[in-house]
């Protein structure tokens, strides 16, 4: 009897077509899901704009064109100009009749915590208008501050990005709390350029560029990644995932542990708050990091930045560096925005 053999496989062409159709469908579904997520994130106002990237000339620097809200401390809308400055756009050629002042510094000059018009360099520009000592020249302040910079990176910034603007005056904002430490590879760790003394000569150490992550960030692929990250809220959220995962397993030491110890933490927090307030008043507002422990997220630095004499008590410092804003009993100071 003919035709009673085993069933034949379908022709291979049809199988490939089907697989292609399934893949196409899956890709379309992914695209629709991504587009929906993007729209939802935009509608909800969720964004993690990237403000920094690694540059071969100065190390970490501000990402040109980035824009978004800064809420980690204070609340301000931050826009990075086309040349990677937290400032408005400036012509490279100095306009006639201007007196240019370039500001170098760290996060205090970067001033993400306040609106651009409230930063000292913006206020200073307004204050100097009409200053008789400028002989009718219009003051123009250019802000080159970048968080985390020590004087080594500030020097590189001056040499490689500032001089082209031909400033009449360079203003270096020096933070005694960490600008020296930022220059030390031993204290600060890798990931940035350093100056090493070799036979009495300062030699630039750019070994951070040899790291795989730096190579990638400074490559063309890195450019494309940051360009995509600036435009896609979904990518911004996904890029936060590894950090969120780490935080899940390494709880923020600034926050008291959940459960009964919270009440203890509050009580200690109130006590600490009043003491810290007194300390701040006593110190006035001199060198910030000396008057107040820095954010406990950088807890490894707390011992080096302690205020008191003698060894820091680990548990006490963890409590003292808790954010005041997080304490339920803390009255919000009048006039403060955070």
């Amino acid at each position, binding site marked *: 009897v003919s035709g009673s053999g085993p069933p034949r496989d379908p022709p291979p062409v049809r199988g490939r077509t089907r697989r292609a159709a399934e893949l196409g469908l899956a890709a379309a579904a992914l695209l629709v899901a991504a587009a929906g997520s993007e729209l939802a994130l935009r509608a909800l106002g969720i964004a993690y704009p990237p403000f920094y990237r690694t540059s071969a000339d100065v190390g970490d620097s501000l990402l040109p064109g980035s824009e978004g809200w800064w809420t980690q401390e204070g609340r301000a809308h931050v826009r990075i100009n086309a040349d990677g400055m937290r400032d408005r756009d400036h012509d490279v050629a100095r306009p006639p009749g201007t007196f240019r002042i370039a500001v170098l510094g760290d996060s205090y000059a970067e001033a993400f915590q306040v609106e651009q018009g409230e930063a000292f360099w913006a206020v200073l520009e307004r204050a100097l208008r009409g*200053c008789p000592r400028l002989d009718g020249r219009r003051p123009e302040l250019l802000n080159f501050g970048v968080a985390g910079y020590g004087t080594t990176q500030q020097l590189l910034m001056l040499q490689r990005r500032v001089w082209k603007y031909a400033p009449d*005056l360079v203003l270096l904002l020096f933070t005694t709390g960490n600008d020296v430490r930022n220059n030390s590879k031993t204290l600060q760790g890798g990931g940035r350029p350093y100056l090493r003394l070799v036979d009495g000569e300062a030699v630039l150490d750019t070994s951070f560029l040899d790291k795989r992550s730096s190579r990638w960030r400074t490559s063309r692929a890195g450019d494309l990644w940051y360009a995509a990250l600036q435009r896609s809220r979904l990518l911004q959220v996904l890029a936060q995932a590894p950090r969120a995962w780490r935080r899940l397993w390494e709880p923020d030491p600034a926050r008291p542990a959940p459960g009964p110890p919270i009440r203890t933490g509050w009580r200690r927090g109130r006590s600490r708050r009043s003491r810290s307030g007194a300390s701040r*008043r006593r110190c006035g*507002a001199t060198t910030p990091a000396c008057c107040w422990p820095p954010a406990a997220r950088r807890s490894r630095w707390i011992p080096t930045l302690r205020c008191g004499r003698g060894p820091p008590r680990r548990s006490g410092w963890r409590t003292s560096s808790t954010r005041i804003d997080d304490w339920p009993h803390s009255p919000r*100071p009048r006039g403060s925005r955070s």
Partner: protein
Amino acid sequence: MPWFSATQRRHLAERSAALGLPFVDLSPALQAEARRLEGRELLYFPANVHYTPRGHRVVAEALARALETVAAAAPGAE
């Protein structure tokens, strides 16, 4: 830690003078404003001790006073 801060600032002032660079110590202006405000308004955000808008204003005013003299000595822009 005022003693430490004062030592640092004195060191910076001396080094700047040796290099012939004008040095502006912002601490007196900030301390005076902190005393005047008596805690009613902060010059620093408590979380990470960066300047509040009020702190920035105090810094700008102190720099404006100092720069008036420095600017006069700077080369002309024309």
